[in-house]
């Protein structure tokens, strides 16, 4: 096996990088792939919380780099999917504890016996971001349909282009079709028009995402969630399958049932 190394980044914070990593990794593991997630946010780690593995951390990525443990010892096996692992970030150190060449070395070691290595990048465009993209074969840029998030995504795409990291793909997260229809939110077309990169998925706004993150059970495991479906589709596209984009306007399923019940429309 030779793993594909995928880095998820955004520029702006809080747009859903960590959520995307947890969900894509879980979706890939559900498809039987062997996946290793790396939390690149040294000092502000939270991928472990979102994946529900917080209590199992013994060693972290800085321990591996500084030789206090073997790579295998820092890989935490997931509770539900034994083919999914997490390498957590150190919480008590900062971004300078890791260098781009350390990331390349770790990813090369992981490549031989996994299908996907997914790196969660910190917000910003400084050292931590550069560590996260150093080993990437493919970069996914996450943004929200907000002017500030799109501008930061544009900056990140510019840096990736300048550093010749290949063409990044876009995940448009937290789109609310009703707001778009009323012209209160940027549409997918507006965002794509400005960024001019390939779209790999649109994830609709869904409160189950937050519930899942707090429970440590990513929303992809919820068969009814629309956001979960969107992440499952992106995971299929990462495996090279051609999956049509979801029709976000269709008012069927759980979401519209809630809207009808609460009288929102």
């Amino acid at each position, binding site marked *: 096996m030779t793993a594909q190394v995928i880095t998820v980044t955004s520029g702006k914070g809080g747009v859903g990088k960590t959520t995307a990593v947890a969900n894509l990794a879980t979706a890939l593991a559900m498809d039987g792939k062997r996946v290793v997630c790396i939390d690149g946010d040294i000092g502000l780690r939270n991928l472990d919380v979102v994946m529900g593995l917080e209590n199992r951390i013994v060693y972290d990525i800085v321990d591996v780099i500084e030789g206090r443990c073997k790579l295998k010892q820092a890989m935490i096996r997931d509770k539900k999917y034994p083919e999914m692992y997490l390498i957590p970030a150190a919480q008590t150190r900062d971004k300078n504890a890791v260098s781009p060449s350390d990331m390349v070395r770790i990813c090369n070691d992981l490549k031989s016996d996994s299908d996907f290595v997914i790196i969660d990048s910190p917000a910003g465009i400084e050292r931590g971001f550069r560590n996260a993209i150093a080993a990437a074969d493919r970069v996914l840029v996450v943004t929200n349909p907000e002017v500030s998030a799109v501008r930061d995504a544009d900056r990140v795409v*510019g840096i990736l282009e300048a550093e010749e990291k290949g063409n990044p793909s876009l995940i448009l997260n937290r789109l609310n079709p009703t707001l778009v229809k009323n012209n209160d939110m940027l549409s997918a077309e507006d965002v794509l028009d400005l960024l001019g990169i390939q779209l790999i998925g649109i994830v609709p706004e869904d409160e189950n995402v937050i519930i899942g993150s707090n429970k440590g059970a990513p929303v992809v495991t919820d068969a009814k969630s629309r956001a979960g479906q969107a992440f499952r589709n992106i995971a299929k596209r990462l495996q090279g399958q051609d999956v049509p984009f979801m029709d976000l306007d269709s008012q069927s399923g759980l979401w519209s049932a809630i809207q009808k019940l609460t009288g929102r429309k």
Partner: protein
Amino acid sequence: MITMEQVTSIVQIKGIRDGLLATFSDAAWEDQRTALILQIDEKPAFFQGARLAMDVGNQVLKVNDLVELRDQLSERNVALWAVISESPMTEQTSQLLGLATRISKPRPEEQRSFADTISDETALFISKTIRSGTRIEYPGNIVIIGDVNPGAEVIAEGNVVVWGRVRGVIHAGAKGNRNAFICALDLSANQLRIADEVSAMLKPQKDPRPEIASINEAGKLQAELWNVS
């Protein structure tokens, strides 16, 4: 192997107002890079947390050269913030990487007046979208095939022509040439500047048409339909 004497003759490091300036003399890039790193490793405490500018002369550097060196420096906690070069290629690469290409003390040849530097035949030609955070500066005309996105800045001493949409900031005639113009297929910029005139924000148009902005007889910046006839 290079000796320490050779090292200091290849790269001279001195303090300037904005941190440190490394001036490279003629040598192969590999030697220059090694010499710089050797000097830093010699006195790590001195270089800790330093801001470094490099004057690379007429050396042509590629993206990878600069990225590799920048990472090597950042591993030593030295921040590379500017690359000064006589090569337009290196200058453009540095700007795309978000590095400054001028430091506060201008080089003597930059004090030429715009009349000498703008020749109608020369232009910086860029065929890509200029994204947020990128600053393109050129002492002549600039032609861009692509968009200028919000948060990007394009600064020319001559004219600016954009075959695409302008949403960022454009400054033509930056050294005071009031005859400079800016034209684009869709001119909905945050801000346009020609010489020292500044435009108000232009509204995005529903049905964009090519426009040209220049300073009119009343001395104000104005945009009108771009009629090439």
